[in-house]
């Protein structure tokens, strides 16, 4: 069985491991608070003041205010928690997913209807680089 460090070669994937869970603890707690209507209202009424209640890093705080979903994940957010902020902010999951994948919701939806993102070329960073080089040459 692999320690979490051994997953670093999987592209575009942020394992919610010992480092992420420790780093993202307060960020995810903030997201969890969005389960309650009164908190959603208070947050949307004055985001900076509401965020002062949580010990976020400057990067986490900026990512929340910018609704930068990928950055939240990179800063220790877990998708099941971060998506509670998505729902609070009126984002569909598709819109969040498209944003993380660096594409438009329309293109993301078309990809899913076409059978999803292919595993071919996406297993490792090396495989991904080889695949994109192949496409570049063809």
């Amino acid at each position: 069985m692999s320690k979490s460090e051994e997953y670093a070669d999987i592209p575009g994937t942020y394992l919610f491991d010992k480092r992420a869970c420790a780093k993202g603890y307060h960020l995810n707690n903030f997201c969890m608070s969005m389960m309650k209507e009164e908190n959603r209202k208070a947050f949307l009424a004055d985001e900076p003041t509401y965020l002062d209640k949580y010990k976020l890093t400057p990067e986490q705080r900026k990512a929340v205010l910018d609704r930068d979903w990928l950055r939240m994940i990179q800063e220790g957010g877990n998708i099941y928690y971060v998506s509670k902020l998505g729902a609070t902010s009126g984002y569909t999951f598709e819109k969040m997913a498209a944003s993380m994948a660096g594409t438009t919701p329309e293109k993301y939806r078309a990809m899913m209807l076409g059978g999803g993102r292919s595993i071919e070329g996406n297993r490792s960073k090396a495989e991904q680089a080889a695949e994109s080089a192949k496409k570049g040459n063809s």
Partner: protein
Amino acid sequence: MAKIIAGVGCSHVPAIGAAIDLGKTQDDYWKSLFDKFKRSQEILAELKPDIVIEVYNDHGTAFSLQYIPTFAMGVQDEFQPADEGWGPRRVPVVKGNSEFAWHLVESLILSEFDMTIINEMEVDHGLTVPLSLMFGQVDAWPCPVIPLCVNVVTYPAPTGHRCFALGRAIRKAVEEYPKDMRVVVFGTGGMSHQIHGERCGLINSAWDKQFLDRLTSDPIGLSGVPHKQYVTEAGAEGIELVMWHVMRGALNDDVDELYRVYHVPASNTAVGNIILKNRGVN
């Protein structure tokens, strides 16, 4: 004496629950998926379970990151569907069976599976979506359900091998229970999906299909698949599939596959369902 009749593997995609609750099952996007599950519901009705043990994971609903139990069992007589941010699902309350659940907890801990014991807990889509798919839209679920939660959100999830062994211990506990009862075990989650990061939207149908095949042909070998293979091949959130090994471990070595469903996509996920019956058990 209680006995395990069958095992069910079933995805628990939240969008499926929303489609059912909002009356969209006949929409173009959803109809072909729900048509495939009609046969599943007929088979479950024929199996006539007296109780379901449902292995699932909570998605930051009843548990936050404050406490992260690896294995936990609900032992009360009632579990309310949770409000996951858009109101509770319009599904019946989940009735447990306190006497049977406490028997399981006692037997499992004495078999060296140290379950966390949960008296109060709301249940999210991870538990209720497979119930909807297997039993349809009903006023009351046809039998009590024992929730068995597994941490698959924070790495590491328990290994497939450990999950399989838990299934074996569940089978022993069920067979020790003195009342006549027909038990069906559900393993839920999966199949391939990744819902975060730039690799979001990953689906790997070939890998999913070999997983479904090996549940019958090579269950022990399959339970030895390392976590990294799930994350690489089936997407980071595809690791939920380890919960299917609890179901498979609870069955006999010889099973008959009664039915399977495979469908892509439901939202971001490949949907799978398999129904395995213990050979020779009626």
